[in-house]
């Protein structure tokens, strides 16, 4: 559908995709305290690949992603689901947020928590869903 070979888009896509992906992870991790979060981060990540998709087409994008978007959805739902169970083990109602401070070398603490796991699940589900639709649509266009 897109005319291939626009130089600016080619170059921009190559450099923007990794930047956008890093930015999406950044948004995901800071989401609990600052603007961001899994949903937004997932949209940013799919935006990155959407750009790539428009520039290089579905086959190349699939190749770059390495993972089938359908699997991404599965992974996302899996993360979403496992985040609800730790509360059960502690004996609290399902989905109660659990926080663990894991000591790190150097004296700091890593704030590990179930909302983050849940957010990662949201991230992958959104990412996978959007990419699934986009790639599927693009593939029909290309035929």
């Amino acid at each position, binding site marked *: *559908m897109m005319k291939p070979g626009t130089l600016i888009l080619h170059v921009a896509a190559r450099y923007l995709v990794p930047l956008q992906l890093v930015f999406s992870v950044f948004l995901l991790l800071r*989401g*609990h*305290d*600052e*603007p*961001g*979060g*899994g*949903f*937004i981060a997932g*949209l*940013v990540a*799919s*935006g990155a690949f*959407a750009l790539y998709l*428009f520039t290089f087409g579905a086959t190349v994008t699939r190749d770059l992603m390495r993972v089938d*978007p*359908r699997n991404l*959805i599965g992974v*996302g*739902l899996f993360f*979403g*689901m496992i985040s*609800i169970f730790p509360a059960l083990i502690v004996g609290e109602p*399902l*989905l109660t*947020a659990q*926080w663990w401070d894991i000591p790190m070398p150097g004296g700091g603490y890593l*704030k590990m*928590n179930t*909302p983050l796991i*849940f*957010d990662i*699940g*949201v991230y992958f*589900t*959104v990412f*996978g*869903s*959007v990419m*699934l*639709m*986009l790639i*599927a*649509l*693009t593939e*029909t*266009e290309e035929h």
Partner: protein
Amino acid sequence: MQLAVLVIFLAAALTPWLYKSLDSRTSTILAIIPAALTVWFASYIPAVASGEVIVHHYDWIPGLGVSFDMVLDGLSLLFALLICGVGTFIVLYAGAYLKGHENLNRFLVILLSFMGSMLGLVLADNLITLFVFWELTSITSYMLIGFNHQSADARKAALQGLIVTVGGGLALMAGLIMLASAGGSYSLQEIFNSSDVLTEHPWYTGMMVCLLLGAFTKSAQFPFHFWLPNAMAAPTPVSAYLHSATMVKAGIYLLARLQPELGGTELWITVLTSVGAFTMLTGAFLALRNTDLKKLLAYSTLMALGTLVLLLGIGTELAMIGFAAYLVAHSLYKGALFMLAGAVDHEAGSRDVRDLGGLRKKLPVTAVCTMVAALSLAGLPPLFGFVAKELLLESLLDDMFSMVILAMVILSSIFIVCVAALVAIRPFFGEFKAGKDADQIHEAPAGMLAGPVVLVVLSLLAGLVPGLVGTFFTLPATYAVAGGEIEGYLSLWHGINAALLISIASIVLGFILFKNWDKVYLQLRKLDPIINRGPELGYFKFMDGLVWTAEWQTRLLQNGSMRNYLRVIILSFVVITGYTLLTRYQLHWNFDLDVTFYEVFAVLMLVAGAAAAVLTSSRMGAVAYMGSVGFFVAMIFILFSAPDLGITQILVETLTVILLVLVLFRLPSFSNISSPLDRASDAFVALLTGALMTLLIMVTIDVQMFEPISDYMIANSVPLAQGRNIVNVILVDYRALDTLGEIFVLALAAMGVYAMIKFNPKTAPGSNHHAGTLILPPKHIPEKDIVHSLEEIHQRMLEEQNIVPADEIEQEALDDEDLERSADAEDEARNATTGSNPSMTKKNAQHDGVHDYSDYEEGTDKDINPDTNEPHKGEPKP
């Protein structure tokens, strides 16, 4: 007791595994469970007989007042014993009857599930629990009737049974809810113990009608009786168990259960006696018209069910005693008779009484058992059936209730004597007749005979010592039905009284009728046209009406036009919300605004974007304008310090535009396909919605009904959820369950889009020029897929194996092209005829200009599974 029910379901769940290692012996092993439960329930007999009521508590959904309490009183115990006791033999019988059947394991699973449901039904104290089990029995019954699912008749009968009983179940649910509201509790025990008099409650009539509808449909009372004889399409063990001994008595059980609380009013007595008596007579009369052993028994079951309802309706003490006795007697002999009929069918290869005869030498045990059971059916001493029938007659005479009812009872007992004789004498005496050769017929296996023998012996024993049976089984049940202890006894010999004389007379007359049955049968056949116009016709008419209504409302509501859907949704929203707004709140005119210039700018751009999107003549332009509207909404979010929403909005807008561009790329160029009038009405709807939203916002600014929840969230987001971004905290912590649901919906939506695009080449964007209309594309079946004859199939097989040179295939290909060409021509002709619809022709014209039709055809042939490649059923109706 909860455990007792659970164990049966557990056994049902484990059956498939057992079956793998045990094969047809599974049923023998499984029979242990109901047998053990029978013994366990029997251990409660002394306690219950002394008037004790045993209650086992277990909470199910305490928040809604739904408990899993189970109560064992006389009535429950009687039913529990029947269910488990008869169930034991039925499981054994099924193992032998369906030996070698490929779906025996499936059958046992459903049979056991039914047993568990039925047991739960009679033990449940909570009305909701009772209803759940009630429906479970309907569903399992459906699956059991339709067990031979290859037979269209069985499927039809199963569906009929399901619709009638579940339809009644709906009424029952309404009745139970009314009962609970009126009685102040969902617990039966509490309703009974409360001092409220339900019979004087204003809802009494409505409640009673609903409950009776439920009970009458389940227990196949006139005019809902037709499903029961049809249910004989089920395998015999099912007929013996569900459709005579247990399930059809669920309605009777419910009536008996509610008798102390709801019974005794004039309405109750009138309805129950008249419906019961009429069902009794209808059942007995219709039985005479049948020659199929199972149908004969099914109609006599109708007669028995009618009698039970009649007895409940009469409601005197004697009638109550008679009720419990009749219930036991019927379950014993009818279960046995069905199993024996199955044995005859199984061994002699037919169950038409006209085709059977002289089998007593070949099937001695079956013959003896059948005769004894039939004596009980006919009500002859010294069997328990006689005791029960004497009580029925006495309770009628006792009251001088109504001569009409008495006459109906006498008439139906004459008929039923004839039926009993037909069942017991025709197949076993006279000259030899059978569906098989004489030397192939031999006695049924032990598993099939164990049940009938035991049940028949029990019938006999119970008839010989009725006093004992009365004390331990039927009288405690009677107490539960009557709502207190009553004086009474059961005995075989009541002296020479009117009841005995009536009995003797009816037996003699019944036997005379039997002698002349062949002639009577031919006469009765002449009545067919009248009987075929019975209530069953009503059922069929109802079903037709249902389909017609469904079609009509689908055409009206689901007509496939997106614009129509949107209009309906939006207008309902406007009307409902607007009505509430105007009736509950006054209109607020709040123009007291404090705005900055950049807010005004954003709003103006928003309005301009929306107006441009409406007025533009390019589809791409509309998408872009809509995108700009979205971006300005995002800007407003950011201006009002909601950066998260702003970011999300921008991202979603971006992706929406991308998606739309991908989808719209192939659609024909934008054109006005609606008339100015349509557009005006659309504009009106849009403006109306906008106005409503404006008014709503003005009201929300002024009216503050609740303390906003956001304060709580802001205050607690750091201490409780350790996060400063409240939007995110809401998403992943406060409302995490909602978000979990949402990501699943999102995943499903993505899968749906994927499936639509990938798996159906016709609905892929751009390939279906009929998109959005109800008209399906014409389906062309390639000539090579049309089979004209067997020779052709043979020929093709030869070609495929390269036995015949493939030059004929080329010829076929040419034919194909011809066909396609003619199909195209046909299509064009169709377009010309549908020319009155401007949108159609335009789209088609567009399509023809853009695409090559053969592409589309090729795609179809390549991608569609040949199995589904059948002619379209959904050809559009003009």
